[in-house]
């Protein structure tokens, strides 16, 4: 029978993943909406032209900010989506922790490379 298994067995998330999940939660909650605003409305309304946005992205502080935001958001999303999959009836997928944290780790590495090559 397809469905959600509710068991007494609990697999405590390791403190590291939980720390990255909550750090990413705070980072994305506080900074993602304003970042969307800057890359969409502010550009469309001409409050920010593309050259200024490019300078901001390439600035050392801009790069450090974007790297932190991207990496922590990936770990946040990986952790939360993994548990949502279990709740939605896909425990065989959601319980493959290595898959989700592995993808977030790869994403972090790729983002680090993108940031350093600028």
């Amino acid at each position, binding site marked *: *029978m397809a*469905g*959600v*298994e*509710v*068991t*007494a*067995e609990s697999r405590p998330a390791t403190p590291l993943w939980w720390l990255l999940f*909550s750090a*990413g*939660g*705070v980072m*994305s*909650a*506080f*900074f*993602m*909406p*304003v*970042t*969307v*605003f*800057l*890359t*969409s409305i*502010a*550009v*469309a309304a001409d*409050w*920010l032209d*593309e*050259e*200024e*946005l*490019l300078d*901001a*992205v390439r600035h050392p502080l801009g*790069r450090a900010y*974007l790297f932190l*935001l*991207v990496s922590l*958001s*990936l770990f*946040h*999303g*990986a*952790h*939360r*989506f993994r*548990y*949502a999959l279990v*709740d*939605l*009836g896909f425990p065989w997928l959601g319980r493959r922790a290595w898959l989700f944290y592995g993808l977030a780790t790869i*994403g972090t590495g790729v*983002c680090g490379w*993108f*940031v350093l*090559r*600028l």
Partner: protein
Amino acid sequence: MDRHYVRKLPATWWLRKRTYLVFMLRELTSVFVVAYALFLMVVIWRADDPGSFSGLFDALDSPVGLVLHAIVLAALLFHSITWINLTPKVLVLWRDDEQVDPRLIAGANYLGWVVASAVLAWLVLK
């Protein structure tokens, strides 16, 4: 032998109650957080070359681009609000024998969100 008690629920359990639905929508904001993080990676990748960078933003300057941004922004605002509403549950503070009002903790976080957003917008737009 699995000796744990297993209770089966239909996969649609979260449609039964409004609070369950809000919970599931909250958890699924993670999809938008990851999607926007991947978009930012494309932005960083394209920032290598000014022509490629402006090509990306010219492509986004379209009705489809604006609608996509609006959907992402709505989902991310929902994420921010639900995340901040959780903070008093994670952080329970006591002053002497009295619990600090949860609304004060959430309020401080809302204030922090507004200040952080304003500072970043000011730094980029100034």
